């Protein structure tokens, strides 16, 4: 840790690495990059609670660890509760004078499964109780760590091992659960979506989420070459396409006010995003049109929310 920075235009990015090299994420993993950038944004004064999943498994093989910040993993579905205990514990120890007063960010890290499925209850509880913490959901749109099983965040039409495409099925037959909106519904001060193809935007949002008093949620799109079946060098393109097609819009909701961070006058056709990925390869034109229609609708809804606060 030497505290140096590299300059990219007006953006400074620290050379400190909080997740050490030598981790075992797959070749070209977008989640690994997203994590690396998020941790740069957080700095060293954090405590991270990590749900079971790719991030946990790829960074903590006993007897060693990739982590250079205090880190804890206990279970798959309890991260919201665990970070509540960490936050409450630090606060009361400082209040009782058993620990010097200082700013330590409490950060929960989980996959889409650990967030929008099995961990939803614990997270909802932590939001509702208004603990001061930041929750980062790394969304690779399936249970990757256990072998690409579908989650409620898997998009319509994607083939996974438990919702495979077959003669009678297109794979996932439901639309992706909108976790960011569920976070917004808890009336928390900060919610944002991010993608590692937009590193400075991601870093800013994670920083903001860490600084906000009260619960904050950042939903991070995390391209997965293994589960999505695209070539290992394409993570950045795939992320950009997700944003530019409107499939994964980048926005923030601060105290209930919506703001689009990247708004293209004209969205690119979803086909450009779907094509390079093996998980969508079986989709016929009719299904692609259906996805296009859905994206148009959802994007319009989002723009309407943004418009409410534009004036």
């Amino acid at each position, binding site marked *: 840790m030497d505290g140096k920075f590299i300059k990219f235009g007006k953006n400074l990015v620290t050379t400190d690495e909080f997740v050490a090299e030598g981790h075992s994420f797959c070749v070209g993993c977008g989640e690994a990059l997203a994590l690396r950038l998020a941790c740069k944004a957080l700095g060293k004064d954090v405590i991270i609670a990590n749900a079971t999943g790719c991030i*946990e498994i790829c960074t903590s093989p006993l007897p060693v660890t990739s982590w250079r910040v205090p880190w804890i993993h206990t279970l798959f579905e309890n991260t919201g509760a665990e970070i509540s205990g960490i936050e409450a514990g630090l606060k009361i120890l400082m209040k009782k004078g058993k620990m010097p007063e200082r700013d330590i960010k409490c950060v929960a890290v989980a996959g889409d499964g650990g967030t929008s499925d099995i961990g939803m209850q614990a997270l909802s509880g932590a939001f509702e*109780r208004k603990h001061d913490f930041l929750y980062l959901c790394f969304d690779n749109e399936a249970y990757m760590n256990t072998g690409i099983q579908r989650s409620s965040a898997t998009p319509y039409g994607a083939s996974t091992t438990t919702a495979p495409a077959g003669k009678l099925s297109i794979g996932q037959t439901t639309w992706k659960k909108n976790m960011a909106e569920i976070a917004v519904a808890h009336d928390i001060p900060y919610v944002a979506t991010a993608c590692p193809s937009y590193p400075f935007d991601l870093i800013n949002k994670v920083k903001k989420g860490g600084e906000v008093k009260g619960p904050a949620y950042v939903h991070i799109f995390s391209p997965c070459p293994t589960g999505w079946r695209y070539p290992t060098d394409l993570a950045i393109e795939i992320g950009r396409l997700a944003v530019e097609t409107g499939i994964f819009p980048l926005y923030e909701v601060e105290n209930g006010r919506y703001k689009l961070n990247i708004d293209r006058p004209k969205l690119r056709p979803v086909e450009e995003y779907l094509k390079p990925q093996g998980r969508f390869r079986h989709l016929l034109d009719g299904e692609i049109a259906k996805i296009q229609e859905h994206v148009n609708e959802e994007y319009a809804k989002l723009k309407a929310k943004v418009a409410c606060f534009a004036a």
Partner: protein
Amino acid sequence: MSKRVGLEASFAAAEAARMADVDVIAAYPITPQTHIPERLAEMVADGELNAAYIPVESEHSALSACLGAAAVGARTFTATAGQGLELMHEVVYVASSMRYPIVMTICNRALSAPLSVWGDHSDAMAVRDAGWIQVFCQNNQDAFDMTLWAFRVGEDPRVLFPVMVHFDGFHLSHVTEPVILPEQKEVDRFLPRFQYPFALTPDKPMTHGAFGPPDIYSEAKIAQEVAFRKSKDVIIQGFKEFGDIFGRYYHPVEPYRTEGAKVLLLTMGSFSETAKIAIDTKKNKGESVGLINLRLWRPFPFEELCQAVKDAETLIVFDRCISFGGPGGPVSSEIRSALYNEKERPRVVSFIGGLGGRDMAVKDFEYVIDQGREIVEKGSEELFETVGIRGEVTGIRG
């Protein structure tokens, strides 16, 4: 000056947590545990206790929040019962394996179905292999004393294991008895401040809960097991220190009027109090009987148990839990295997009763002793006997 007050066991446990100056409480209400979190929440609201009370949304989250709080070095307390402990099950193993000295009161409750809010020991037995220190209370004074003692022992740097303090739902949790409360300065003398050596802090980043590939998992588990068994020395030392300060001495295995007794009855929890009366009555009639109260359930006190029963001819073990399809109640099967290699050992007769809050009166314990004696003489077709069940129970065999 210590003072004598009327308290139900739930309030006694809450009072002990207050005097221990706990930092974090995370709990979810379930009958018959409700009075504990209610009382603690009230203490926090009134400023009698400087603690964070986290009103979590489930028991799974209650114990998970305790993990987080303990990991940063907070003294941490929770309480539950029956279904709540079942819902926690996954987290129960994590707490002991990661060596967080959380103290948890269990107001023992039967398990569904059918739904029952009343007491038995099924909940405690379902977590017996989870690596927590487990003690059972006979009365409300025990409930106070064991809670205080649990912090002292669990947090000892030679131990660092979580502790479950069990007392029977309703039979103790909701019954008021006189309890002697010590002075704060005595408590402070007994219970040093919690100094967790591995607290998560940015000053010395550590990794808690890394995963165990096959080439290391077994070593991790053996290290845990050896440390857990070793904790018995500190458990006993803790009982001794407690006695030296507060005047009440406890033991892993507590014999009552057993000198020269041919027949021994073994019970746990509040049953021991009633069973003592049955023993007194029988002794008065000249019968050669005595009682063993098993206080420490985990780590199991093999040595002490064998020593306490070696001169008896018959040992009747009374379980408040069924181990479906097993050799008898969990306590009796444990005791049979504890005694198996002993040269001098009594015959063990297994009884099951008092399930789901069914009262066991003095006469029931007398019946158990008489029946037990008869079975030793005449033999029995069944693997275990029952008490208080309407209708003849047969067909309990392998």
